[in-house]
């Protein structure tokens, strides 16, 4: 391996790229615009004196800048991206093409509804697919992401409690310790008291501890199923029944729906509300952290409180119920309000429906089965060298993700972070680290159904080699990693202690010192 230092700082195809502000010009513009008609300004007292202090780039310079940046990213199109609980599956390009049809991408949310009948039909179709797949009677499409969907579901629960006049007394939300951080954050945002439930020795909700927590003041449980240890909550129906018996509501975090889509309907498990991450289960791209989309299905008990807007169909075609005073709202319908401007993530609706139609009911069931098969294959192929905390052999399979802890690294002087960073040098994006919090040094691997056996075999072989290296004391391979990525380990402490959150023109003094 060459340690050659280059003059330019570039390393072959790996090119260093400055910030826009360091290469752009204040005279440059990469867009040709029409001449401005000569009219008198009507800006009143609000006219700015000059241009925003931002440089521009010509089109070729801009293209090169962003393409160079793109080459510093790992992506699912480039390789396995086994982030547990994130469902990094293939993003079909047909979805992108469909979302860009002008009939979907070039329509305004507030143009007359008679001119957007196809868009409303698509929303209605998507709602039908989501309701059928979950076995629940209603869906709020508008939430913008998973955490926003959680908020939607918990708002519907809060509204239902309020309608019963129990808001003052029913204010405790049970959240398992293995939950995503968004769950307690969402409950707290709505003024609920968060009460943790421990996990049992097999990584599931401790049923006895859960039942002890039940009472008239329990508003809801927020339970992820399959849970974040990658396990199906075996007692889920018993949990739902016990909760319903004391008047509580069952919020299910649907982040892991990919494991059961087309095979198990959450409605059959007693769920009252569940968000669906279209960007996980239904293949809309993660886009470097959004945009997501979090439609939330609701049970009969919560459906009357579904937020605005929603699509209804009648003799004149489809239309939107958008305001509280809408005459079409029945006496029993009491929307809790509005979560977003306009109607939600239409671009994501198109992509998700395109994906669902492609797979069909048969293909979606196969999705769940292959996702679970792939995860179990990884578990079975690594359990002898790594440590899976809740593993009990083939009779106790995992669902769509395999959870390991760091005990196999005991006495090596290495931790989960070191192991993850060494994976980067091997060309892999690491798994989810240190989550869930219920096991020490967690490593949560979710391969998804879109990995081939050959891809998994290569990954497994690499993981086994790394474990061997760790146990043989090859410290440098881990402690110095990554060495072959665009950057080595970054100093996060400095970033937080002295936050630099935007570019500033270097001062003359600093420039002189360089």
């Amino acid at each position, binding site marked *: 391996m060459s340690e050659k230092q280059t003059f330019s700082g570039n390393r072959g195809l790996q090119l260093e790229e400055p910030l826009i502000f360091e290469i752009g010009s204040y005279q440059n513009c990469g867009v040709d615009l029409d001449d401005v008609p000569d009219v008198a300004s009507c*800006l009143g007292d609000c006219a700015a004196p000059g241009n925003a202090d931002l*440089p521009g780039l010509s089109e070729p310079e801009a293209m090169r800048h962003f393409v160079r940046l793109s080459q510093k*990213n790992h992506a699912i199109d480039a390789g396995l991206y086994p982030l547990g609980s994130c469902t990094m599956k293939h993003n079909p390009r047909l979805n992108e093409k469909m979302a860009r049809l002008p009939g979907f991408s070039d329509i305004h949310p507030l143009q007359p509804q008679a001119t957007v009948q196809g868009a409303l039909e698509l929303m209605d179709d998507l709602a039908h697919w989501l309701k059928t797949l979950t076995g629940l009677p209603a869906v709020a499409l508008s939430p913008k992401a998973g955490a926003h969907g959680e908020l939607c579901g918990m708002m519907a629960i809060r509204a239902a409690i309020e309608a019963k006049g129990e808001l003052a007394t029913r204010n405790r939300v049970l959240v398992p310790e293995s939950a995503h951080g968004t769950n307690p954050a969402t409950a*707290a945002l709505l*003024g609920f008291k968060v009460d943790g439930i421990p996990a049992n020795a097999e990584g599931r909700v401790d049923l006895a501890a859960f039942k002890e927590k039940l009472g008239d003041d329990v508003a809801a449980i927020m339970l992820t199923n399959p849970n974040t240890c990658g396990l199906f909550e075996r007692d889920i129906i018993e949990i739902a029944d016990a909760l319903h018996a004391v008047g509580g509501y069952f919020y299910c975090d649907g982040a892991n729906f990919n494991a059961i889509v087309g095979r198990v309907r959450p409605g059959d498990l007693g769920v009252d509300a569940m968000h669906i991450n279209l960007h996980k289960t239904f293949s809309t791209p993660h886009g470097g952290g959004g945009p997501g989309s979090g439609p939330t299905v609701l049970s009969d008990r919560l459906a009357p409180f579904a937020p605005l807007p929603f699509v209804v169909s009648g003799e004149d075609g489809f239309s939107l119920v958008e305001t509280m005073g809408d005459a079409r709202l029945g006496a029993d319908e009491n929307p809790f309000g509005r979560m977003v401007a*306009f109607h939600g993530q239409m671009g994501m609706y198109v992509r998700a429906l395109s994906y669902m139609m492609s797979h069909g009911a048969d293909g979606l069931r196969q999705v769940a089965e292959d996702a679970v098969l792939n995860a179990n294959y990884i578990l079975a192929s690594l359990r002898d060298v790594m440590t899976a905390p809740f593993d009990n052999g083939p009779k106790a399979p995992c669902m769509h993700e395999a959870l390991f802890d760091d005990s196999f690294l005991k006495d090596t002087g290495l931790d989960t972070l070191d192991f993850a960073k060494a994976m980067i040098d091997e060309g892999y994006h690491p798994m989810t680290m240190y989550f869930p919090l219920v096991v020490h040094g967690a490593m949560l691997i979710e391969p998804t159904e879109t990995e081939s056996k050959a891809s998994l075999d290569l990954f497994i072989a690499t993981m086994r080699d790394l474990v061997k290296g760790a146990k043989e004391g090859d410290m440098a391979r881990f402690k110095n990693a990554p060495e072959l990525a665009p950057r080595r380990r970054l100093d996060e402490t400095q970033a937080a202690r002295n936050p630099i*959150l935007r570019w500033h023109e270097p001062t003359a003094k600093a420039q002189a010192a360089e």
Partner: protein
Amino acid sequence: MRYLPLTDTDRQTMLGQIGVGSVDDLFVDVPASAQREGTVDLPRHLGEMQVERQLSAMAAKNMTASSVPFFCGAGAYKHHVPATVDHIIQRSEFLTSYTPYQPEITQGTLQYLFEFQTQVSELTGMPVANASMYDGSTATAEAVLMAHRVTRKSRAVLSARLHPHYTAVVENLSEMGGFAVAQNRVGDASKVSEAEDLLALIDDDTSCVVIQNPDFFGNVSDFSALAAAVQERGCLLIAVVPEIVSLGLLKRPGDMGADIVTGEGQSIGNGLNFGGPYVGLFAAKQKHIRQMPGRLCGETVDADGQRGFVLTLSTREQHIRRDKATSNICTNSGLCSLAFTAHMTLLGGKGLRHLAQLNHAHAVQLSQKLSAIEGVELLTPAFFNEFSLRLPTSAAGVVEALAEKGVLGGVPVSRLSPDAGLNDVLVVAATEANTQEDIAAYAAALKEVLA
């Protein structure tokens, strides 16, 4: 199935290695009553061509903005997006990457987020901006919660001219979170200043006053005096910018004294998309960064001393702080913020000003043509690319009649605020995408409809 690589042979081999007989054995933990035989009642799989045919048929039922003279705004604007922008956001490495949890192999995402934060900070005139929110409405609701945290108070005062959907989102989140909201009464759209009304609504428990510029009706104004008066009362001023292109010509909210600026960034880089996905902008003062919601990208160095970027100040966030987090937000609007940054980079400050001038000039031309029609009154004396008209009849009816003539003529206030008593008011936007022919066609059609 084209998205599934495993063959039946693979599946059998893998089941054997796992030590089970069939895939059903992997679902043993599902209660028997929830086990389903066969598939759910939905259509079977389709080839690419069939999906495309069905969805194209749906798309064809919609009247697209580019196909007609088009003048709808009210928080979503029709602008030209350069082809380069759409190519960049479809790069696999951006499109199919996740939140940059492993910064060593996601410097591409992190660097553009840092560039995005710098651009938003510069445009708004605020010291810091975050890595984006879901959209303008949710950003505004989060800003109100942030003002409560900063001031340790719990009531917000809203302008009557805040976008009605934004108002609804703020009210919903506030009510659900146990906070109070007081909105100025929905007044006459032409009233020049509501500053005194807003100040009168402030009480001892008020944390912030939320205004919008340009406001929902299109009015623009220098709110420096209001900001100072609000701050004198111990409150924060939150300024909402629904049309970010306006900042190519208008005074920056930070320069007018705003404490928090939220905005909708859709206009730069992002299409109409029937309302989403869009990109929420959120900018604030340096001293409040630890109370900000959402992701923040910061500069640092790596083990070799090279500059690099990371997500930072995550001790504010839900995955660390859980129920003590500043917000429950997890994702941002990553790819939409990339579209914003790519388009903004092509424009530069110079191009943005030119673009804004075109928008303003077209709106001025249109306002003159339309207000010359008998019975039509221009309600907004100072505006950017959007203005309000009082019509001699129901604005909703006029918009329907215009649509039948193939003109999408704006948004009737009654669609969003049916109870405001403004059924005769129409909000009309013009952008660089409108031609002189579009403007003439609109004037002719409106004249016919009102005749």
